[in-house]
């Protein structure tokens, strides 16, 4: 299975994960600072900033795009409960 490295910059922690893993499946387990509300892409609580490897995450859905817009997200913000890891990337809480 393809692997990828995700680094949570706020705690300087890197995790080696199978491609396709959602960030929500990892961040809480290692105690990263991304926090969650609804956990289904609606509330925007888990907005994070992708500092490297923007293209190594799955494309945001139409719904995620809408939630990001409503929460005045920056260019490199994503929802941690939605984004799946395809390749190496670095993230931190927005």
């Amino acid at each position, binding site marked *: 299975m393809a692997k990828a490295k995700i680094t949570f910059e706020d705690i300087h922690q*890197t995790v*080696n994960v199978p491609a396709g893993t959602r960030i929500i499946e990892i961040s809480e387990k*290692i105690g990263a*600072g991304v926090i969650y*509300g609804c956990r289904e892409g609606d509330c925007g609580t888990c907005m994070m900033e992708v500092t490297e490897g923007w293209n190594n995450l799955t494309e945001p859905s139409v719904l995620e795009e809408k939630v990001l817009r*409503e*929460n005045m997200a920056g260019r490199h913000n994503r929802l941690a409960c939605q984004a799946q890891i395809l390749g190496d990337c670095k993230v931190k809480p927005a």
Partner: protein
Amino acid sequence: MADTPLNVSTWKEAVEFAPGVHWIGALDPTLRTFDIILRTANGTTYNSYLVRGSEGVAIIDTVKEGFEDEFFHRLESVARYDEIKVIVLNHLEPDHSGALPELMRRAPQARLYISTRATTMLKALLRPNREEPFEYTTVTTNDRVSLGDRHLRFLHTPFLHWPDTQCTYLEEQQVLFSGDVFGCHYCDSRLFNDRVGDFRFSFDYYYAHIMRPFKQWVMEALALIEPLKMKIVAPTHGPILRERPRRYVAHYRELSTSSLSRELGDTDKSLIIFYMSSYGNTARMAEAIYSGADTVEGVRVSLYDLEGGEIDPFVDLIEEADALLFGSPTINGDAVKPVWDLLSSLAVVNLKGKIGAAFGSYGWSGEAVRMVEDRMRGLKMRVPREGIRVKLIPTQEELDECTGFGREIANILVGKEVQRGVIEFSDLT
């Protein structure tokens, strides 16, 4: 106007409080519990306002469902429906949007203005009543709507106390229609802060239960509000603030400013350990964690036995703390009630991003620690390390582990997190 006797409960007429600016709201004097969580000793008001300009009329907020008759009666006393050009909802909660569907039906030419974050809420709130959603315009800070010789300017003030909230400023008359901000559940037909009874306790109570979890958003809103010239602040509940309205704005700033940060200085972090203990085992763990955390410079550590305290002062402490550790024994497969009592009393404060950890002694299954950790995550806290569980009486080795745990959490708090190298996903529990 101040000398005119008012008895709006029987008059059912609009009350003009600035030229062309009318209160057209409703009184709810028999209400004793608002929205499940708030008590009120004399009811509340649902304040709605009408502004007349040379080129049309604006309605700002409506009333709760069930109070439409009073609202429409007052509206009709000063305007025709075909004159209404603008409808503003500063906040979509049902106590302010209850009359909106009927108002839109009676004034179909009017344009609805809501904040950028209100769109999904509008659809969800009105879905049961309409087949077609309303047309609307979303607005944000400094967007303006003209009524000819009058202009409404919008201020984007989200999370006070819903994501959608905004304020609307009538420029020419310097009236701020503030939504729930500066409001309170207080019903007095004399309407104005210089005429009603002593409502200070209601004002503070409302802030404590509605605005307190959103203090940082209050501060951002105040940055927009304070520079305004303000003759009147007109909230959606309680008295209209026309006598020295800036006192209430200043009071909001005071209520939203952290007291402990002044006490501790800018650098020290506050770490608080709460525990309950049946046989002294969890207490010994707490003391060991305390001794470890206390060795870390820049951290002020506090240790409290929940058995000896009341909930409310602990909630105040928690609001100002940076890290919270909860120790609970496991009894019948659960954390103990005083721990849950405290953890279920925190809806009035913002815990987002605070560091949390749990520990406890147990007899045979030890579920409490994981349950408390899950609760802390649910409260949007960060739980950076798995908590410590000890079977019955802790050994010296286990107490040393507790000391190390306290030191590690305190180090995380001051940004000295120990690096763990690359972790394999399959190793995460």
